[in-house]
Each structure stands twice: as structure tokens, then as C-alpha cells.
């Protein structure tokens, strides 16, 4: 338990088997991340958590911490790379923050601000992704899915339901509701599921509650995303409030 590595020059203690990001979160140090959630096995898909370990690029959420490792994270070079990744996520979906109810409570938006992203830079894909409003309590707005698979993991590993799945591959990968009709209402999904409280963006939404929180009181109004190691629990608390 006394083993440490350095993160941007500061020592971070870790225990056997922890990844760099897990150890950083446990120590209260922020490394940008989107598809990581402290309760789940890392998935390593968004690459926003990429750091340099001994000068080499590595996804910190999946890379084991080793004693004495020299990890760089908050550098202009790495942040520029992260910014480009986030910009790509913006153009691959339809993210229109001004009318999104998750605005201010969204990790993608908060990360974009934190990385100083001012425009999406790339050309928009404008994918056509209709919403699924079939469920009485929950709405799925696929326009904003960043394919982090947290809902898939939560439903499978915690709820024991397999409500969500990623289908297709490469650029065609998309999130689906796992039922014969493909509609959420035909799954066993409930608004109390863990999977109803893990989406880092504005896809899995509790119906009829949008915009209840005024500006100034939303998660990332209170402090920027980089002010805490991980904001997952705070976001989940927002979703949990009325359900």
C-alpha cells in the first residue's frame, strides 16, 4: 500500500491491481475521463484519460499503476489531444447544449469547457437518431450518445438485466435497447436501475424533469469538472433526486 507513482510531479499512492486513473481518483487527483466510472471495470474506449507514462501514451483507466512510474497528464500536448477527441465526439452526435436538459450536469460539456474547446472544429456528421420515448418514466435521446458503454455495464453488472447493448461496429456502432422490438418499453428497464443513473451525457433521461435546476445550482456551475477527481456521484445524485 505504500507504493507510489508521480502524477505531474506529485506522488500518488496506489494499491496492487489499481489502474493509474483508479489510484488518482482515490487520491483525489483529476485526470480527464468520460467512459470511466469508479464502480465499473474500465472499458478504455474514449481515450480522453490518455496520459504519458515514462514518455509513452497510455489510457490511464486501463493501465496498471506501477511503483516509481512517472505519469504526465496536465500538459499542453495531452490536453490538445484530448480536446481533439472531445471535438470529434461533438460532431459525431447531435450535441446542442443550449436546449439540452443535461447542460450543466454533463461530463462531455464540462470536459469541453475545461479543455478550452470553443468550437467543434470538425465538420458535423448530423446523424439521424430518433428518440425513444416509449418508456413511461424514461426517455432515450440517442442524439447525444458517446458510446461510453456505462449503461451497458451498469445494466448487466449491477441490475442484472442487459437492457442496453452496443450494436454495429466502427463508425456505425450505436446503442440499442435490448428487446425484440428495439423499444425501451419492451425491456425490463426501471427508472430505479443503476443504469438510469450513469449516463455522463444527456441520453438516458428521467422524463418530465428537465430544466428543474436553475443556472447556478447545476453540478458544474458549483465548480468546474477539474475541481474534483470524479463527478460521477454528483451527477447520479441529480438523476436520483426525483425518482
Amino acid at each position, binding site marked *: 500500500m505504500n507504493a507510489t507513482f508521480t502524477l505531474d510531479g506529485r506522488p500518488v499512492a496506489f494499491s496492487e491491481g489499481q489502474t493509474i486513473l483508479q489510484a488518482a481518483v482515490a487520491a483525489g487527483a483529476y485526470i480527464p475521463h468520460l467512459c470511466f466510472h469508479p464502480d465499473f471495470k474500465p472499458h478504455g474506449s474514449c481515450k480522453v484519460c490518455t496520459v504519458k507514462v515514462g514518455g509513452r501514451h497510455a489510457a490511464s483507466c486501463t493501465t496498471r499503476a506501477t511503483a516509481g512510474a512517472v505519469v504526465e497528464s496536465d500538459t499542453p500536448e495531452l490536453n490538445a489531444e484530448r480536446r481533439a477527441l472531445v471535438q470529434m465526439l461533438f460532431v459525431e452526435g447531435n*450535441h446542442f447544449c*443550449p*436546449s439540452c436538459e443535461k447542460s450543466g450536469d454533463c461530463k462531455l*460539456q464540462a470536459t469541453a469547457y475545461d479543455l478550452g474547446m470553443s468550437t467543434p472544429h470538425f465538420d458535423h456528421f448530423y446523424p439521424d437518431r430518433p428518440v425513444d420515448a416509449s418508456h413511461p418514466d424514461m426517455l432515450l435521446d440517442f442524439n447525444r450518445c458517446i458510446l461510453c458503454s456505462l449503461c451497458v455495464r451498469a445494466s448487466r453488472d449491477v441490475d442484472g438485466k442487459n437492457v442496453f447493448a452496443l450494436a454495429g461496429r466502427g463508425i456505425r456502432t450505436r446503442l440499442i435497447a435490448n428487446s425484440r422490438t428495439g423499444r425501451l418499453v419492451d425491456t425490463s428497464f426501471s427508472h430505479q436501475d443503476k443504469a438510469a443513473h450513469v449516463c455522463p451525457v444527456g441520453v438516458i433521461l428521467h422524463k418530465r*424533469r428537465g*430544466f428543474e435546476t436553475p443556472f447556478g445550482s447545476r453540478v458544474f456551475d458549483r465548480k468546474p469538472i477539474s475541481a474534483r477527481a470524479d463527478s460521477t456521484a454528483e451527477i447520479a445524485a441529480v438523476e436520483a433526486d426525483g425518482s
Partner: protein
Amino acid sequence: MTYGLETAEHPEKLRRVAIDPVSRVEGHGKVTILLDDEGKVRQVRLHVVEFRGFERFIQGRPYWEVPVMVQRLCGICPVSHHLAASKAMDAIVGAHRLTPAAEKIRRLMHYGQMLQSHALHFFHLCSPDLLFGFASDVARRNIVGVAAAHPETARRGVLLRRFGQEVIRLTAGKRIHGTGSIPGGVNKALSAEERAALLADIYDMVAWSRDAVALAKELHGKDPALYNSFGVFRSGFMSLVAPDGAMDFYDGRLRARDDAGDILFDQVDYRDYRTYIREEVKPWSYMKFPFLAQLGAEKGWYKVGPLARVQNCDHIPTPLADAERREFVDYAGGAPIHAPLAYHWARMIEMLHAAETIKDLLHDDDIVGDDLVCTGERAREGVGVIEAPRGTLIHHYRVDDDDLVTMCNLIVSTTHNNQAMNEAIRHVAKRYLSGHELTEGLLNHIEVAIRAFDPCLSCATHALGKMALEVTLVDAGGAEVDRLARHGDGRVSRDRP
């Protein structure tokens, strides 16, 4: 931390699908003047593109998102759309009577919007024109010119607008793209500090609004021949009024009068608007032509906005503005005033009323209350109507059992004035067109006529004398005789076949 992404200064860069219909209002206002066999003006057409595409876009979206999303319809008075949509959604969630706190916060937001919009229109867009004259040097006819010649007037204009924006920020959460109004109520009240900060300034705002009415009146009085006759035509009026006939911008029932000022209908529940208002489509304009069913398409067009409201109501429920209203009505000896340039005077009376109302609301303890939302029995259809700065604004939605919008119909203020603007231009063209050549003077006058209505077109929000405008002259045989355009940068170009 600021949320630049939410304010969408360049929304077109975020999502084209959504923005296309909105950006279509960009660009030139196009006017065609059609001549008859004798070379006289027969008809004038103002071609505008409106927001129809938006109605389609909102379909399939969850209803609670609509009050926030519709603000993208208009960069000038987004709060009006925010509130009209919220009122329609109140009906959807069964909130037939809001809590006192919610209703008053929404009113505060709306009257703040009225104040800032009227101040912007008068001081920034029109005062250069009115103070220096329509024919004066274009280089001087802007707010900078006003600031040089009338520094105090310009300063107050800026501060009045800023105060209105501050009221909006504190009630909606942000100056633009706020979220304060939600189905069934609001998401925040005012804090004691916010209330105190607004109270500290409101008395200046009332006083300055009073002076602004005096200024508008004085300008009118200096050149009555121009103000009373420029672009004049007769038509009916329509607006909401309170149950007791008082002026009310936030809620009420529909009242319409004919061109002689006689009541056509009164205290009409706005949910029945389709029984009273029909819409005609004309092939040469994207903007529909609404008319009063009672009078038919030919004669049933009408004016909305300040000129309509000030004359349509029985009284204004704040004393200073009501005194001004009486003077306005007396000016024409009780007969309805139809002069487009009288809009400016009426608009300032409304600004004064907005300031007085804000003052009263700030003294009401309900605005710091905490009972903010209510709901009732769910409905599938909702209509929300509000008096926006430019006139009656109608939002109408149907929502299915899955909470998604299936139908949306909007009649925006500028659309009500469509025929009226065409008429005003026709009168101006008749008077100022000579021969077969378009002149810059004519272009100026057409612009002044359009702008009096404060239309919600981005072409009309460019600085004065710089409105992007293209006028085409067509003879009886349908051939183009002349074309004159002024571009956004003030350049004038002629394109004669």
C-alpha cells in the same frame, strides 16, 4: 465559469439541422413593386421567409424541452417564445393556475423583456433616424451619432436596455437561452439580494421611460404632417386584454377592433384562436397572411403590437403610462390612429408601463416565494398566447402519451403584421416613386416604413440605413424595369436589365 456553449453565439456551427429554418430569416428583405398599365403602383410585395421549418423540427421532441428550445426561433425576443411555449405546456401538465410566485416571476421576466426590447428598438435602431431625419447623412444615423449629439439620451437607452436584460438574467437564469420558465411554473424565484439590486435602479428606469415617452411625443409634435401621414393605411387591431379590459402583456383574452375602432370580438378564449383567425398562403412569400375570419381574407387583416395594444385596451393599469395613453388617444380626437410612425410613441408608452409594472412586482413579496411549480391532470393539447414586444404571439402544441410533441403551430407577431407591412410599403411607394427609376430616397422610405413595425427579421436589425434591402420594379407586362439593392455594409448597387 461562463457557459459559452450554451449561449450559442454561432449556433449554426453546432447543428445545421436545427438552425437552417432560423438562419433563413437572414439576408435581404425583398420588395417587389408592381406597376399597372399607366405606370402607377398597383401592388407591393414584401417577400419574407418565416419559421415554418421550425414547426417541423420541434415535432418528436419531449414537451419539457420546448420552452427552452423555441428560444432559438428568435435572437431578438427569445423570452417571449420561452414564455408562450411554457404557457402552452402549463396546459399540457394541467397547471391551469400557477402559484402566485411562479406567475409573478414569469411576469417579471416578460416585462423585463418588453423593457429591453422596446429600449433597443427605440434608442438603438430608430432614434438616429428620428432625431436626425430620414434623409440625413447615413454615416451619422446610428447610435454613435446619437451618442455624440445627444449623449444623455444614448446613455439612458443603453442603461434601460441593460436593466431589462438584468431582470431577464435574474428570472430566467441567463440573458439569453435561459431556462427559468418550465411547464407548470418556474425553477427559481428572486433572492433578497437580487430583489434589492433591482429595486435600487428601478426608479431611474421609470423616470427615464417617462422622458422617453416625452421625446417620442416631441418628435411626433415637431413634424405632425410627416408622422401622421407617412405610410398610413387603415386596418383592424388585435391584442390580448385583461378580463377588465386593461392592458396585459402576459395573459388575457383576445380582443379585436375594426379600422373605425369598433369591437369585432372581445374576451375570446385564446384556445379558440383558430375560429377567429385564419391563415392564407400566397405563392410569393413564405410568410402566411393571417386574417380575421369574421371579415374575410380581403378585408380581415389587422395590426398587432404597441399601436394596437395601446388603443385596444380600455386602460393601462399603471398610472403614469395610463396618463400617457389618454393623451395619445386624445391626440386623434378619439379616432383610431393608424400611422405607422405612431408605433414609436405607443412603444414608449408601453416601455413606461413595463417599468412601472416591474417596480410594482419588485415590491411584491411573492417574487421571493418558494412554491414554484404545480401540476394537474395531463392534457394532450395546449395553446399559449402572450403579447410579445412586437405583438400577439401564439404557440399551439399537441403532445402524445409518450410525452413527445406531435403538432406545433406558431403565429409569430411579425406574421400578424404581414399584410399591414405590405400596405405601408405600398403607400410609401405610391407617394415616393416617380417614373420608372428607383431612388435611394425611396429605398430609405421603404425601410422606415418596414422598421416602424419592428419586424422580427434579422434584415431589419442591422443598423439604420444599412438594412439589407432589395427593391425590384416590375411593369404591367411582368418585365423587370429596375432593381436597387442596399447591402448590409451600406453599399448601394443598381441592377437594371
